[in-house]
């Protein structure tokens, strides 16, 4: 073996250990009884934490709540970002730079800056404790990202393709839905992946918008911390909270690195 290959191999192993070590810790604790439970000694390996999750309706409901608002958010984001990305890719207009600027500015505005007024606004229009509220507010960082990703995929499709279809008498929305979306399917997958992830991991908005009900998984986990925290239960919940993300990573593993090639 060449020395460079060995060096790379060592580097890869070091990276794998660095990234995986925290996950090993999480999974290991999730299968450990960290508190005394009936019939299970403290420190023994058991499934008691997972059983407790499914016995607690609040915990299992939080899993469903999170999945619901994240899926709503992904659907909503893609629905509004696709026409916008198509417009950005295919049209020249004067306010383009300004809109680009505003989109980026909101993308990087931290939730804590807007959390309070969003709460006040949503309280007025009855969107507190509702998955629709969280799905809407997460659009603030997901719509700009989705537009950016989709635009780079659409720009990779030659314009002649549009023109042929339009000459054939298809309307623009019809063309985008029936002909363009199949071609940019990997791009839609990548955009959906990033929207899913950013919505799934967000905590500040999700917490402030759920006062009495509809609590997401992150808030449910936070609620487990107390005087005598059952850290095993916390880690079991964390393990479950990783599964949807893992599934998403698996689906886009071959496309995730293709979305940003064209231009930033």
């Amino acid at each position, binding site marked *: 073996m060449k020395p460079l290959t060995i060096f790379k191999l060592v*580097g*890869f192993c070091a*990276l794998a250990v660095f*990234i*995986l*070590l*925290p996950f*090993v*810790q*999480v999974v*290991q604790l999730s299968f*450990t009884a*960290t508190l005394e439970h009936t019939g299970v000694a403290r420190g023994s390996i058991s499934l008691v934490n997972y059983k407790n999750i499914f016995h607690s309706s609040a915990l299992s409901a939080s899993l469903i709540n999170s999945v619901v608002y994240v899926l709503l958010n992904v659907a909503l984001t893609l*629905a*509004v970002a696709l*026409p*916008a990305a*198509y*417009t950005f890719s295919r049209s020249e207009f004067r306010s383009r*730079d300004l*809109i*680009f600027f*505003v989109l*980026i*500015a*909101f993308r*990087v*505005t*931290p939730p*804590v*800056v*807007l959390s*309070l*007024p969003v709460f006040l606004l949503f309280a007025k229009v009855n969107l507190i404790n509702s998955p629709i509220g969280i799905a*809407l507010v997460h659009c*603030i960082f997901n*719509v700009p990202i989705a*537009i*950016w990703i989709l635009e780079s995929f659409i720009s990779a499709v030659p314009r002649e393709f549009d023109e042929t279809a339009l000459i054939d008498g298809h309307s623009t929305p019809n063309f985008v839905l029936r002909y363009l979306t199949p071609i940019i399917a990997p791009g839609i997958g990548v955009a959906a992946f990033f929207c899913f*992830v950013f919505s799934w*991991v967000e*905590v500040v908005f999700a917490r402030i918008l759920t006062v009495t009900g509809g609590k997401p998984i992150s808030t449910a*986990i*936070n609620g487990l*911390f107390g005087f005598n925290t059952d850290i095993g239960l916390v*880690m079991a919940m*964390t393990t479950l909270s*990783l599964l*949807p*993300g893992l599934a998403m*990573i698996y689906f886009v593993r071959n496309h*995730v*690195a*293709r*979305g*940003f*090639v*064209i*231009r*930033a």
Partner: protein
Amino acid sequence: MRSTNWRIWFGLMPALTIMIFVGVVPLSIVFHHSFYDIFTLESKFWVGGEWYVEILTSLRFYESLGRSFAFSLITMWIQFPLGILIALAIPKIGPLKSVTLVLLALPLVVPWNMIPAIWLSLINPDNGIIGRVAELLGLPFDYKFTALHTWILIVVLDTWHWVGLVAILSFAGLSGIAPGFYQAAAIDQASRWQVFRYIELPKIAGVLTMALLLRFMDSFMIYTEAFGINAGGPKNATAFLSLDLGEQIAGFDYGPAAARSIIYFAIILCVVFVFVRVNKRQRNAETEFWQ
């Protein structure tokens, strides 16, 4: 193709409507509140720019600003060289490519409030993997009361969380380089450094600026992860900008919190403005280069 106006607005309208509702409207509410002393939403009193003066003349604000800047710079100086290095080492094809990309994406899917909890249990001397090893080796690690240790923990945690994004974005940029460029470089007997400097770096510059902006803002305004570690301690050594704001909101200090939000948003606008200008210049330079 210069499209008609209604066509453009038809395409942008849905996205803009949502952005106005969840972005512009709340921002206007904050702006309005920032000039009031608010006891309840019904009883509030006009105070003009008092909160702004108070924040902008307080030493605490500049200390937090400095800490946030320092944190951003440190994490970016670690994550960008490391992320680019990883991206360069990822094989362009084969199963190891997919495995590495999946590995790099893993920390991105962890809910943010769980990240400090995970790292705290990792360094826990009773049952944490690192904590027990450190105890065996006799290395004291006291993140609660030693500022340096808290900083190290947050920087390592942030690197673990985000180095994958930098690497994935850089790799995406690298995989867009046509093999012809590398062949030409080989014929010219270019060194590895020259290949990186004159072929790879310019090609990933666009994606890197976007990554730089995302990473700068996220680390500059770090909240959930840093708060979960030590709530700004010890003795405010990790009190970053967002933590000050979060504290005011939690304390129902709405007027000052609103003014602080507006000040932070102004900082964000300045940073984004600079970024957009740089990005545009870069894009122009690139088109000139390729023509």
